[in-house]
């Protein structure tokens, strides 16, 4: 039996749909969020239609069942049934979209504040464009001292930061579930791996209240650590964060 080209296209789309659902949702246990899944499926459908219609013959075969359904007088009953199903389906989708929900609205915001050029901390002004970690030089000059500084940074971390950012630095500390936005996951390739050390200094020293006015409210629960830690302790904890995660701070020169 020859499968119609339209049915074949539907089967191919169905295979991709099932793959995403089963592979990510069941096997990896990390389902793809609806917003992204819709985009994926939209372009997969477009891709399938392009492949099935790039030849004149292929396009005709793809459209022929639809054309037949719409134009063949003998298929009036089926046409009415299909029209009915399509209408009800469209109504169902619309209802799903507009029905009242108790769920909190989606947040489109990206929690990724841009740093200012200058900050004030410890009664001093820091130029974030030129600010560097004063201990970084020991990496080459005195590796033993550097190791000790990282160790001390680790102590600072486990005495102060790990409650929220977690003992694996993955943002899953004891109190993490109480926050929205969640504490930063330093293990993620998109956080400290993408940032300069001066950025981390700014975020740690001035905390949530130090975030820029633009795009407020940030809702960050990050304390103002300059009130609790010394400048040196902040630089040490930054060394520890990069050492533990294995990432290298963003820079424009090779280290």
């Amino acid at each position, binding site marked *: 039996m020859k499968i119609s080209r339209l049915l074949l296209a539907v089967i191919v789309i169905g295979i991709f749909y099932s793959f995403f659902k089963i592979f990510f949702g069941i096997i990896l246990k990390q389902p793809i*969020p609806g917003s992204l899944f819709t985009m994926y499926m939209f372009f997969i459908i*477009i891709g399938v239609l392009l492949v099935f219609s*790039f030849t004149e013959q292929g396009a005709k075969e793809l459209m022929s069942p639809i054309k037949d359904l719409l134009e063949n007088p003998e298929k009036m009953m089926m046409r009415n049934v299909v029209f009915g199903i399509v209408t009800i389906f469209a109504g169902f989708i619309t209802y799903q979209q507009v029905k009242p929900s108790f769920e909190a609205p989606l947040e489109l915001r990206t929690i990724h504040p841009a740093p200012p050029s200058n900050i004030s901390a410890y009664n001093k002004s820091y130029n974030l464009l030129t600010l560097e970690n004063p201990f970084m030089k020991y990496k080459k000059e005195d590796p033993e001292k550097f190791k000790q500084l990282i160790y001390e940074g680790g102590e600072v971390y486990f005495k102060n930061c790990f409650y929220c950012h977690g003992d694996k630095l993955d943002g899953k500390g004891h109190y993490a579930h109480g926050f929205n936005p969640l504490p930063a996951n330093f293990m993620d390739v998109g956080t400290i791996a993408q940032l300069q050390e001066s950025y981390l200094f700014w975020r740690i020293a001035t905390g949530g209240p130090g975030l820029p006015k633009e795009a407020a409210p940030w809702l960050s629960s990050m304390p103002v650590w300059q009130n609790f830690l010394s400048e040196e302790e902040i630089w040490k904890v930054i060394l520890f964060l990069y050492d533990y995660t294995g990432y290298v701070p963003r820079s424009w020169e090779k280290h």
Partner: protein
Amino acid sequence: MKFSKKITLTFFIILFLVLASPIILNITSKSSVFSLQPLSIVLAEEVKQDAAAAPAEETAVKEDKAKPAYPPAPKLKESDYPKVKGFNGRIVIWLAAQLHLWFAAFVLAVPIFVLIIEGIGVATKDERYDKMAYEFIKISLTAYSITAVFGGLLAFSLIVFYPDFLKYMANIFGSTMLAYAFLFFAESASLYIYYYGWNWLKHGFKKWVHLTIGLILNAVGTTLMFLANAWVTFMMSPGGVDAAGVFQGNDWAVIHNFLWNPINLHRFVANVAYGGSVVGAYAAYRFLSAQTRDEKAHYDWMGYTANFIAIAALLPLPFAGYWLTAEIYAYSQQMGITLMGGVFAWLFIIQAVLIGALFLSANYYLWCGMGRSEGAVRYNKYIKYIAFVIIACFLVWFTPHTLVMTQAELKALGGPYHKYLGPLGIMPAKNTAVNIMILFTFLSFLLYRRANKVATVSWAKYGNIAQTAIFAGAIINIVFLGVYYGYFTNTVLKVGSSVPQVASTLSVIIFCIIIDVLMFKGAKDVAPLKWGNVPDRSQYALFLLAVSFTWLMGLMGYIRSGIRQHWHVYAIMRDNSADAFTPTIGYSAQIVSIGVIIFMAIVIFIFWLNQISSKKA
């Protein structure tokens, strides 16, 4: 006079040198692009220089008396911005600037490839090229006057709504603004002689005079764009002024600011791609309304050529864009993060979708075009694999790092990032995907080239093996560079690894084309190539290409300008108008979309004008 190939070659070398001369001059000048430094280093240097300059102040005072005094950047209040009832100043400027830019990009690009096509016509002695080049320039001529109209509207709007800002810019760029105005005369004169003299200067030595005028037209046009780019980039990365915005008197320093060259390159390449897509839409318009077979064949060929130009320029465009973005990051981390990690990040997802749409429509056009020859049936079976790879890359290309999730999804994933898809949200994955997408688009083109031919050279089998090996090697290299350097090394290597990725892609294109040209020299035709024998669907792909390009330029132009946020001139002159806030994503997208609709409506009007101008009573 006999036009030998040598003369043609010499001509194109001169063309290249003239077009590239502003860039070459930059690189060879003392303050070359390579000596430019990020804001951080510049500021640090300025502090040092200020300290060192103190003892020499007395001598400097004497010298300063001879120099004209320039004012600092004004500190404006909201009341300094005039209001006109019923108009929002920012929207007027936004739309006027954007429409001016769309038309300007088009009219600057068309003469570039018209000159090349005219040159090909001279070299091949094929009259069809000359006819097509003439038709292309005819479209751009109508658009030229509209460009000037929108330029005028922009200038007047700036005078009305932002007079103090314009005054400050005029204090710094007075000389370049005057140069711009004079060059505009030169541009108009050369364009009119080039167009109206087309038939007069058609034969013999006169043709070379005509080509030379075309060359001058392009050199002037490119210089005009570079001057305007200086004003725009000065607003983003000001150079040649002190911290208070006082002009130091060096014109070259303000022109040659940090982002000038990256923008020059990006806009130059993008203009060509954009110009190609708009004339492609014109060809599609004429194809769909054609009455005769000959007319259909002509406009099919024209559409194919325009698409070829657009795609040839589109392929290197992501790399030019990446360079520009890397330079923005290098200049200011604040602007860089605002651009791709902050408030504008979602617009980049729309950008990614539109770029994917460009690649898909360009590929679809090529696949449909294979229907021109029955010989192409051999290759139809490969299309589904090419489509699979391109779609897979496309999905990676637009996967965001931070996902939009419901509370239930957030809970299921345990955080705002997807464990397996999250890493696809950063640049190394995007670079890898776009390089592979480009390679497979190129593969579509290679198959199209072979559609109606069979290689007759004895080494054809080895040629195919070599091409396959080059492709495979490049893909392995691109994936390795993307995965290893992108995720397991530091940022310098991460950003740096994009260069060998691009080099791999470009190498494939160059080597495979060389092998293909040699392999198919004297090839046997399997079936005739029937121009005009393409489905109407393919022409809509050409329309989609032009609309996507226009929308893309509008959105990205807004982002480029918007990352200055509340600054007229970044970190120098603050915007204190009531509109100094960053609008929401939806609002910005609506304004840009309104611009696109206005632009497309005018473009269709131009197409119609061209159609009626070729009708006989």
